């Protein structure tokens, strides 16, 4: 148990892997660590944008928006 209302249960073992289940109230969010890790990694990469590439990125996005405007009726 974690706290009063979160339960970890062993669902299955196969060789050296185990399948765990989490029983929690509906309002408790259970996320996989990979999702947090992915977002964290994007934040960190975003903070390291090379300046020359940022200038080009801005022009590329401006072009995309301009092209879209032109194609609108």
């Amino acid at each position: 148990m974690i706290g009063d209302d979160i339960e970890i249960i062993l669902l299955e073992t196969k060789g050296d892997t185990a399948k765990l289940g989490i029983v929690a109230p509906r309002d408790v969010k259970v996320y996989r660590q990979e999702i947090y890790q992915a977002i964290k990694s994007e934040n960190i990469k975003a903070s390291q944008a090379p300046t020359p590439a940022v200038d080009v990125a801005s022009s590329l996005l401006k072009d995309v928006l301009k092209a879209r405007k032109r194609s609108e009726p």
Partner: protein
Amino acid sequence: MNQLLETPLMNLETTRFGSLDVDHGAIIHFPLGLLGFERFARWIIIDSDAVAPMRWLQCVDAGDVALLVVEPQLFFADYVPTIGAEDRDFLQLASEDELVVACVVVVPDDPALMTINLLGPLAFNAAKRVGKQLVLAESQYSARQRLIPDPMPADAPVPVG
């Protein structure tokens, strides 16, 4: 009267923009920080034509940390992040008009490969200046969605199926 008690501007030394005078009223408070930047709660948005339509999200607690963000609906008109009741409370949203959503943009060395993080959008209350990085775990959104489509070479084979 407050002006006697506190200076309205604070000076911030930044890596990207040099010395900035930051208006306290412009600060957006992310009490939980951003993922990977959990200790940094205070951020400001810096508009600059040089990066438009992107904007800089400059950390006030660390002058060397700035991230590019963009309004996701400019490029993904159907994008609607689901914000649960708990997050709405956190953001003190009284009306939908107060909500601003911005997504983090990663610009690699080859800018054509830049990506937007639709899985972990930043949501903030423009009126109350409080924000949070959401985690749309139940959505199909990608943390690395390409922003610029690959050019289609004229002689490219037509994909089948």
